[in-house]
């Protein structure tokens, strides 16, 4: 512009940069669809006891391997009887598949969210250190390369076999192979942002390193990490299902989609419903998380979206 005539006049008042962000997110169709489906899954998990389910672990030898729609009469102690309809049939131990699938959403989402949160937290810390403290960079990154060289499933199996099988062990087993990817993303951002003049200006202003990291570098990692987090979440849900399906994950009495499918594996040809219903839920959940991730990437990170 020319002579900047109005230096003392107010500079043009534009809206703050974050104002349009939410509106933009809400306009993206894949965020809308993915988010809605995911929210529905979450509600299903939370309200599973009130959605016409019975105890998902209750074994009933008299109603084994019933097809979807089978009706069972339950006699209460006072002599009255009610009929219960097995909407998705029963498994080979007579447990209600509908109840187990709905309760299974709890485990899957819990694992997805906690794995994403913990692996991002740990990866963020390691990535910041690797990106900023040069001497440690080589050590951390070579270790991460080593982790990445082992197939994720294999590593998870190894970790689970070290501990007693259980929710905690499975979560740790899935987190470990995810961490290197987060570290790489964070490190590359730190490496490019630390060269920015505004970071150097902060160094000149005497800002101490921890403050510098949190105040000037960390905010740049937020958008890419939200995106990365959704993909980790999707893959964690899948890996949990795989581990449970292989019988090395969460104990079989706990209803998870992987466990239900593992249970139904032997009789798959005759009674496909045992695998079909949890399979559909798994598919939809993973698809929804991935759609959400894609949408977030397109809106938050235009550079990656255009690839």
């Amino acid at each position, binding site marked *: 512009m*020319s002579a900047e005539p109005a230096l003392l006049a107010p500079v043009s008042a534009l809206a703050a940069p974050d104002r349009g962000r939410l509106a933009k997110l809400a306009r993206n169709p894949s965020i809308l669809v993915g988010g809605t489906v995911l929210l529905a899954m979450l509600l299903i998990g939370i309200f599973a006891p009130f959605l016409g389910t019975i105890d998902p672990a209750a074994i009933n030898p008299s109603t084994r391997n019933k097809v979807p729609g089978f009706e069972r009469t339950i006699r209460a102690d006072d002599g009255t009887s009610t009929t219960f309809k097995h909407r998705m049939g029963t498994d080979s131990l007579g447990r209600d598949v509908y109840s187990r699938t709905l309760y299974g959403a709890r485990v899957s989402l819990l694992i997805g969210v906690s794995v994403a949160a913990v692996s991002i937290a740990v990866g963020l810390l390691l990535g910041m250190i690797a990106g900023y403290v040069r001497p440690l960079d080589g050590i951390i990154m070579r270790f991460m390369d080593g982790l990445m060289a082992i197939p994720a499933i294999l590593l998870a199996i190894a970790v689970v076999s070290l501990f007693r099988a259980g929710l905690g062990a499975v979560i740790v087993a899935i987190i470990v192979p995810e961490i290197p990817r987060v570290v790489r993303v964070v490190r590359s951002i730190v490496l490019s942002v630390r060269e920015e*003049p505004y970071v150097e200006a902060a160094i000149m*202003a005497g800002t*101490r390193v921890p*403050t510098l990291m949190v*105040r000037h570098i960390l905010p740049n990692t937020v958008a890419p990490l939200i995106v990365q987090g959704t993909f980790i979440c999707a893959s964690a849900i899948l890996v949990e299902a795989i581990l449970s399906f292989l019988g090395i994950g969460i104990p079989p009495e706990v209803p998870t989609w992987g466990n239900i499918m593992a249970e139904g594996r032997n009789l798959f040809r005759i009674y496909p419903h045992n695998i079909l219903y949890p399979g559909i839920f798994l598919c939809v959940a993973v698809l929804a998380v991935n759609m959400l991730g894609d949408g977030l990437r397109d809106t938050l990170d235009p550079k990656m979206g255009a690839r």
Partner: protein
Amino acid sequence: MSPEGPVLAVDGLSVRLPGGGDRAHAVEGVSFAVGPGEIVCVVGESGSGKSVTAFSVMGLLPPALKPVAGAIRLEGENVLAASPKRLRDLRGTRMAMVFQEPMTALNPVLKIGDQIDEVLRIHTDLGPADRRAKVLAILGAMRLPDPERIAGSYPHQISGGQRQRIMIAAAMVLDPALLIADEPTTALDVTTQAQILRLIKEMQTRRGTGVLFITHDFGVVAEIADRVVVMQKGHIVEEGRAADVLRRPQHSYTRMLIGAVPSLKPAVTREIKAPVALDAVGIGKTYRSASLFGRAKIVRAAESVDIRIRRGETVGIVGESGSGKTTVARCIARLMPPSEGAILVPDIDIAKLTERRLRPYRRKIQVVFQDPYRSLNPRRTVGASIIEGPMNFGTNHADATARARDLMGLVGLQPDALARYPHQFSGGQRQRVAIARALAMEPEILIADEAVSALDVSVQRQVLALLRDVQERFDLAILFITHDLRVAAQICDRIVVMEKGVVVEQGVTAQVYAAPAHPYTRALIEAAPGRDFGVGEA
């Protein structure tokens, strides 16, 4: 098409901007002509619409920008009405363009000969042998040494100036009637710039090409133009023969632009006897690229540089890219540790202090960076950026804010603007904020690293005036890094000339300019564009 008519005639061109901008049209009612063998310079500051005009001629406007009125005739043919296919034919054969950035305009994975050959392959029916001969001939005409070797090189193997010659070669190989050059020398060093300008002029005289030359630099205009078109905010404000416009500018905006170009004649030189603020002795910086296999590579970015700055004095470091001037500045600011030497401020040596021991001295030296768009954190208000430093050193929030408000007034901005974000300011305003941020630390030494290089001349002049003002007010020692000898002449009391990491000359500004002792200094001063015309001395 008549041989006498103009090569290019732009007639009443208007290009609409998408809604929400500061004006409705990028350019409005622009008319001018380029005759055969004529160089027409379109001059203006950023946002004047000069590049939009050039891109309209080439048919390369982004889809959001639409020409809504007027005509562009290339040898009589209306380019605006041409089909995309016809436009492709015209580009390369009848008109060609040279861009600003020679680093990115060439494909890094193709050999240079093949890139020029591609133009011939697409637009002519020549056989491989004929094309090869033509490529070598044009490379020779560009005064490139050893055309055979250059044709077989990749872009990263040759220098920036050579790359720009290649761009011109690719543009000229089909003998277009019109060459459009969009700031082709802005990214180059002065000595290289002078060579490129000479080359363009020579090509144009020999081949009779019409040249549309876009620039912001009146020095370049004086050097090369036959006719000048001055643009401001999308309108042509003045047009005429170069000599007339430069000597007797009619429009106030042209007068202001020419007047704002700093003169090569040094301003009043002050004799400064104040105590020394900073004494850098034998500063050296060596990069060692340790390699697991083979020998380590050693690059000496700077070697035994001595710089002494007194309070209230401005010392300039001038040099071209790769001269090590920024390395020295960053070492003195301790943004990187120097490999050798001492930095006395003035009684303690900070060159080897650890970050913790160094911290109390950080206040003393502050930096104003080159790029005002990147030196402020976009996520924080400018107020937060300004008070960050003082608060790090224990000032409480209220005091720091009060001081920041004073400083905003001092640098010519409204104190209330503290609550705004950097993107709400123009480039010059941001540079003022950056100066306020540096001053908030109450420094004794201010390092300005190309602090005005990214600004338009009129804004540049204001920021230079501001620097001079705060220097007097706070008795600051200023270390001024620049590649621009004109700017250095205006603000520096003493000059240090660097070449390839070594100081080749240093002395009082007036003396260095009047009687440069070192051949490199002489070459730099001679290469400054427009010096024969005395631009900026009016």
